[in-house]
């Protein structure tokens, strides 16, 4: 619902990074979006396209990587993603079926990289 605000923050981060390199042109931004981040990737892409349309950043490509919920089995140490059918839940370990698990990641909303063209 607030994807336009998020898209703006992403574009700002890309512009800031580009401004550190004299003469560079912003070409792309990569973000990682966890399933528990509360942000919908399709809505984010749409919002990003809307805010860059008609500006000098119109051609900037947004690459959004969907990140699953990762859990750790406290019994066998295995790290695994929650299954596609219930991506948000703390699923039992697929190796040893243990329910003794902990949350590793899946709520991230991070800028991974910025792509620039330098003179």
């Amino acid at each position, binding site marked *: *619902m607030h994807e336009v605000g998020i898209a703006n923050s*992403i574009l700002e*981060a890309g512009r800031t990074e580009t401004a550190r390199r004299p003469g560079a042109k912003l070409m792309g931004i990569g973000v990682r979006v966890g399933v528990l981040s509360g942000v919908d990737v399709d809505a984010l892409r749409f919002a990003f396209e809307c805010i860059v349309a008609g500006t000098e950043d119109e051609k900037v490509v947004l690459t959004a990587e969907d990140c699953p919920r990762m859990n750790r089995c406290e019994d066998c140490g295995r790290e695994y993603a929650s299954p596609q059918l219930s991506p948000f839940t703390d699923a039992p370990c697929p190796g040893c079926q243990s329910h003794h698990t902990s949350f590793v990641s899946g709520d991230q909303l991070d800028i991974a990289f910025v*792509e620039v063209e330098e003179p």
Partner: protein
Amino acid sequence: MTVVRVEEKVLNENQRIAIELRRRFEEHNILCLNFISAPGSGKTTLLESTLAAFPRGEKIAVLTGDLQTENDARRLMRYGFPVQQIVTGGVCHLDGKMIDRALQPWPLETIDVLFIENVGNLVCPSSYDLGEEAKIVLLSVTEGEDKPLKYPSIFHKAALLILTKIDLLPYVPFDIEAAKTNARQVNPGIEILEVSCSTGKGMDEWRAWLAERRGKRQGVGSASRGSLENRN
């Protein structure tokens, strides 16, 4: 083409403000709680019942956020504690900057407990850290028991789930055990309380939860003060 690795949070600026707010709350031993739910789940009503039970003179303060109107602040002001409305003017969540700005007129020494009633919305408020000690999510029994699965982000981040309007259980098809199971699937450690502000059922347990958190916060505060004194 050069690829620059960045590795920072998208909401970096909000995070910076939230960390600073959290530091200030800790310095002043303030227990700050961020209440989040869909519109109409009973955040304001729960806060009214909570404020009504505190003796006047207790150092309680409330910030309440809405897209428009000061109606909630007017409701909450009747209990004699400082209340401030944050009108977001269309923004669907509160952010750190709004809290920082709203706190400016209040000396932090005059606050022990700060309740923040977020904008009614189960999605966006979950992304914005306000420096709170805990997020509390409300779900009323007139909603669907699958909401924790539909809106997992907030149920994942909340320390406490309060199921509200439980006096209506005989009249609605809400499966309370399924709701709890769903919430625990997303967040196994979540604490759960059941309350009705109409009948008062569960309010003692809620007040006990609050008193325990408050005791811990002030205990931590006096312990850290003690260690400072020891160092000097």
